[in-house]
């Protein structure tokens, strides 16, 4: 297995408080790597640092052997990393299809001037992107909803739409920020199945998730964060057996599912 993403000593302060402190991990090809930890542990901050929405105070992120330091979010997306958001960031007034087609932005080449003189939907590129977007919509389980405005979907479907949008450009690594939040148990099961299918197809995923059942089922390796620091790293079985994790993260009385 090849290393796809290397995070080394990643650190970020917010006003003197370390939101993320010297975190290091690697994500392999076709691996689901999960970050877990209580609220405020720094998981979303790690996502924002990797995708370039925040700049690190120290540390490095290397993707496919190339440093991402100083790259803008759109350049990091072009390098092959996309993401979803914990608090959904859909293009609410655009249709489901348009959201996914917008997600496939990097697959297109049509620029501003060419867009002015090309009749809507007539170019080969546009037709291809549309066809692929529709296929992806079916694949995540939103078949028949392509024409609806994204904001009109129920919450659980909006989560799936964000995943479809993040996959639309064909990234090698997808960062999923609490994809199961707000899903019912049947939807969560479907989601877990889908993530495993994506892994079989060679996709790597970095997963932040509070639903432990899902994490233990799909993740290859798990890193536990607490107050911005990594306190454990291992397979689901190792993490469940780690007394420090149970104490720090789950509390005395609870048990990992």
């Amino acid at each position: 297995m090849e290393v796809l993403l290397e995070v080394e000593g990643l650190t970020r302060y917010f006003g003197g408080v370390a939101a993320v402190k010297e975190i290091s991990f690697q994500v392999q090809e076709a691996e689901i790597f999960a970050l877990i930890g209580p609220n405020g542990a720094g998981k979303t901050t790690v996502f924002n640092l990797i995708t370039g929405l925040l700049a690190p105070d120290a540390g490095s992120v290397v993707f496919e052997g190339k440093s991402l330091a100083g790259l803008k979010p759109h350049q990091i997306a072009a390098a092959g990393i996309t993401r979803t958001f914990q608090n959904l960031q859909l293009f609410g007034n655009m249709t489901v299809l348009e959201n996914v087609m917008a997600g496939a932005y990097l697959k297109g080449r049509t620029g501003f001037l060419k867009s002015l003189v090309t009749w809507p939907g007539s170019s080969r590129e546009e037709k291809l992107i549309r066809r692929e977007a529709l296929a992806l919509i079916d694949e995540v389980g939103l078949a028949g909803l392509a024409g609806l405005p994204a904001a009109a979907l129920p919450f659980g479907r909006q989560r799936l739409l964000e995943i479809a949008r993040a996959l639309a450009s064909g990234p090698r690594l997808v960062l999923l920020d609490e994809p199961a939040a707000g899903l019912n148990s049947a939807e969560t099961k479907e989601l877990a199945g889908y993530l495993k299918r994506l892994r079989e197809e060679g996709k790597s995923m970095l997963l932040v998730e509070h639903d432990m059942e899902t994490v233990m089922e799909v993740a290859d390796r798990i890193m536990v964060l607490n107050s911005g620091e990594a306190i454990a790293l291992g397979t689901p079985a190792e993490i469940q057996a780690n007394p420090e994790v149970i104490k720090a993260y789950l509390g005395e009385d609870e048990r990992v599912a």
Partner: protein
Amino acid sequence: MLKKALVFAVLIFFLVLPFLIRSNYLLGMLIVTGLYSIIVIGLGILMGYAGQVSFGHAAFFGLGSYTAAILATSCGWPTPAALLAAMALPGLVAALIGRPTLKLKELYLALATLAFGILVHILFNEGGEITGGPSGLAGIPYLSLGGLVFDRDIEFYYLVLAVVLLVSLAVNNLIQSRTGRALRAIRESEHAAQTAGMDTSLLKLQAFVFSAVLAGLAGGLYAFYVTFISPSPFSFHMSVQFVLMAVVGGLGTFWGPLQGSGLVVALGEALRWAVPLVIPGAGGEYQIIFFGIILVLVMIFRPAGLGSLLSPQVNQERAGRPGGREVDGGVAGG
């Protein structure tokens, strides 16, 4: 989606309109409305899609006008070439202003264009021989395209109608294209747009430059229509009116720019007649008060603008959008 039948019906209406009105005054108003709507279409892309405001579009309009006028008179350029330059120069200037400012947050472009507009208006007034100062430039030739000279109002009316139609169709292509989706995406969630691979600064810059090019086109045509220009139509006051036209018409709608321009031009004429009856001796500056009141009323009663009269379903979605702009939460949190 654009209803082709409606577009055809409206086009036919405007094709026969000059024969119905038989008034040079009204025909002149229609030509000016058409020219304004070209500017407002561009402003609509900038405001409605890229989410940026410009208070300097009268200056781009003026730059286009003066460029066309100076090149066609003092420099002796053929009028079509002068018209092309009238589009190019505002575009270039917009690129220079937009590059640093569009990387910053939303209001910076509004402030930069505000300052720019005032500066350009001063330059027109103080430009000495080059701009003719406050008295302006006279003796601008009529536009001639390959032997066809647009020296009568009726000819110019059809030329403007054709340009408005072409620009409208091009913009309709744009908003449904890959670029248009990206522009709309930026307005909905800039973070999501960026992490989907969109260079949001570049896209906003392109929208801004495009809107300046359209303002320059309208300016060039205006110079060849009136054949005499002075600084007064290119003041800050006019920039505010363009923003008003865009908002009243409805941002992000196909028909909005035409309706907004038409309404504001008509209101301006009506107020010029009505206000002195109520307040004796009142000058043009009173108009802006009434425009302000109208803007507030539109915001209250029809936040999606008048464009919603012809395409209601689109605008209801826009008006009733549930908090699509709360973007910053994406960076906060655990």
